[in-house]
């Protein structure tokens, strides 16, 4: 999985390196954000913030890989929990094998609600991460 630099189409000044950890169906919404042109590929610039988007169900078996992906990301960086599963376990809140929130294993900067969230909700989260309120 390679990380790429993207700009928000509506806010071209908002640029982030995105690494998507697509673990379940929320990853389709992430792909849709790119396919619909909400995010557009941008030239690499040094010092651009890196964002790890956890889109999908984190299982206990996958936790080591999630942690590894987070640790491999260069600073400055932030993690976005995208969707109910990575926020809290979501529909699998009572499962024997699903991690009850990715924030139990890595620090999360923004929680995007939805099951799944709309692609626009990802854009909102990225903008709110990069642009101080």
């Amino acid at each position: 999985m390679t990380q790429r630099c993207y700009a928000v189409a509506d806010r071209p000044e908002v640029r982030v390196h995105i690494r998507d950890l697509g673990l379940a169906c929320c990853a389709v919404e992430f792909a849709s954000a790119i396919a619909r042109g909400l995010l557009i590929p941008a030239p690499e610039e040094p010092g651009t913030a890196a964002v790890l988007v956890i889109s999908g169900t984190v299982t206990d078996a996958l936790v080591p890989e999630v942690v590894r992906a987070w640790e491999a990301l260069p600073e400055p960086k932030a993690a976005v929990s995208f969707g109910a599963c990575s926020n809290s376990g979501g529909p699998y809140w009572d499962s024997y094998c699903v991690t009850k929130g990715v924030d139990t294993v890595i620090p999360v900067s923004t929680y995007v609600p939805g099951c799944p969230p709309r692609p626009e909700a990802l854009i909102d989260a990225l903008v709110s991460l990069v642009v101080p309120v």
Partner: protein
Amino acid sequence: MSAIPPRARGAIALDASACTSCMICVRECPDWCIEIESHTIEVTEPGARRPRSVAVLDRFTIDWGLCMYCGICVDVCPFDALAWVPQHHYPGVVPQDLRHGIERLEEFDVSDS
């Protein structure tokens, strides 16, 4: 940029004045993400022989971090106190931000849908 479809299921809005604290949505929710607190008051209406018990809604919370957006609560509400709205922009910085009480649930604009 494409607009959000008007019937998109972005959030569930609450009309607290329609809610009777009957607890049906709380009990039907598969994720246990709705909480209600209420108390009862006695109301005597003019001309009525006896006072009437009326439930007063003290707290109504939906935890969007847990919600699976299935819409069962909207369907089962006998008083149409819950409704889908297309708004989706409410990310949280901490998980507690995704717990919306009466005020925030009433802020969702039903006229959008």
